[in-house]
């Protein structure tokens, strides 16, 4: 019986390990390419060991763009967006999960339906609104504002808020606590894991978003990382090494963060999925 288990366990690992390595291979290759000169990135046979060109590639990247400034934009935008959007999603999720009110079903259906509308439907009118009517082109707010109402966040938060014990809320109300206080001092603290999970999802979304920032940002100093990398591909002198350094910078923090906060990442993804 035990031997049988051992054999099956070994077989499972023999299957999973190559698969796992296959999935990691593109990322590993990206990190290697970041250290190679341009000519070696695309050459037959391919170079599979790290080179010594990392510093040059970084210089290439920084020559074309002020990449430090670009990173500052990405971090600033993502942090502000994530904090505000998470709070607003939590408020709405709480209302949907813990209150009965006229219009709840309709409003929630509207939020879910919004999930299915491709962004491109909104792109043109939204551009006119944000750029022309609000005059916000090339600012952080142009990127942050349109996405703060983030339906997926509301959906996730509602699913999680369902688990807040109603008795607890009722007890607080009987003690005379105001609704805002209940939310801030009881609901938010017990929801901390869910908040972290949703925050991670929102942060990842904003950090990687490409299409909208591409439309609304035209000044180099306002670029976010994806926009900056995207423009590099279109330049005459295509510096793949530089692009790979940029992608590594855009990606590595999350790989490290993921190893560290795996639990929350996974909770964020599953938050909406299984409460049946």
């Amino acid at each position, binding site marked *: 019986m035990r031997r049988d288990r051992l054999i099956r366990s070994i077989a499972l690992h023999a299957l999973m390990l190559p698969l796992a390595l296959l999935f990691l291979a593109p990322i590993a290759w990206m990190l290697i390419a970041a250290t190679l000169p341009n000519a070696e990135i695309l050459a037959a046979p391919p170079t599979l060991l790290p080179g010594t060109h990392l510093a040059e590639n970084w210089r290439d990247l920084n020559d074309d763009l002020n990449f430090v400034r670009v990173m500052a934009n990405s971090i600033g935008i993502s942090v502000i967006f994530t904090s505000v959007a998470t709070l607003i999603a939590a408020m709405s999720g709480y209302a949907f999960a813990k209150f009965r009110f006229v219009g709840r079903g309709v409003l929630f259906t509207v939020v879910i339906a919004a999930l299915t509308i491709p962004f491109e439907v909104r792109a043109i009118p939204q551009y006119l609104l944000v750029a022309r009517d609000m005059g916000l082109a090339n600012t952080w707010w142009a990127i942050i504002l349109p996405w703060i109402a983030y339906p997926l966040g509301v959906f996730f938060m509602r699913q999680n808020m*369902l688990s807040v014990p109603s008795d607890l809320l009722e007890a607080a109300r009987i003690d005379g606590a105001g609704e805002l206080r209940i939310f801030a001092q009881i609901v938010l603290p017990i929801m901390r894991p869910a908040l972290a999970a949703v925050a991670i999802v929102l942060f990842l979304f904003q950090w990687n978003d490409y299409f909208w920032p591409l439309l609304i940002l035209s000044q180099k100093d306002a670029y976010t990382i994806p926009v900056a990398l995207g423009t590099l591909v279109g330049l005459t002198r295509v510096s793949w090494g530089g692009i790979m350094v940029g992608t590594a910078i855009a990606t590595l923090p999350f790989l490290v963060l993921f190893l560290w906060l795996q639990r929350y990442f996974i909770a964020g993804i599953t938050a909406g999925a299984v409460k049946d």
Partner: protein
Amino acid sequence: MTPDPAPRRRPWRRRATPYLFLTPFFALFAIFWVYPIAYSFVLSFLNTRQRPWTLDWDFNWGRLIQDEYFWNALGNTMLILVVQVPIMLAFATLLAVAFSSDLLKFKGFFRFAFFAPLVLGAVPYSAVFRLIFNEQYGVLNYALTAIGLPSVSWLYESTPALVTIMIAMTWRWTGYNAVILLSGLQSIPATLYEAAKIDGATGVQRFFLITIPMLRPVLLFTFVLSTIGTLQLFTEPWLITTTGPGNATETLVTYLYQQGFRSFNFGYASAIAYSVAIIAAIFSILQIRLVGGREVER
């Protein structure tokens, strides 16, 4: 089951509370979702090919029905949906079962390996895949020829280009779905498996008789999510194959982008956008009916 007992004290404030909590969200939602979506709807009935724009009810919608390129884009999108999504979900289910098995050690490492693709942004990931799938100098063809297989023109022939897109999507999203399915597996009571074991059911039988039926709602959820994602597919064909060769990897949304932002035809682009929305809406109704319905009423 009511979430709250009937309000007694401060009934007015109690009744207003949920609306106050919802106000910030719906204020922004009205400005940045409802208004642009409605405006686009109007646009889809305008002839925007030339200035000034004029109202012409079936100008764009009539063209849509007859437009071979639209049908090609729809066909490609559906093909990816029908082929890639089931393969990915089957793969994700098996992965989830493996993750939940106590035979597997180093679970953290394996989760990391399959989930890591998700943290890569669209632009970095596409740049990397373009290089890997490069016909002459890509690592992939190098590996294929090293084990005696022929090299493939991944980006410049129709079928391989579609396959490239599907491989890329599978690489990026399998781990994500596996994680969702894993949480579904964990909510299946262990007693079910124990009872089946006592009855002498084999592992395969247990998988098909317990795991799959119990996982059905979650599977359906991942299916709906993937369907909506696929209907909105843009990044991969846009950046990896540049919708080519020709329009072999054109999708509904890349076609929309071409019409709106390359040809300046906002009206037609809006009509395409709404056709995507209509198809997606059908799936979201399914979702609410089949998965969310019971819950919303809880």
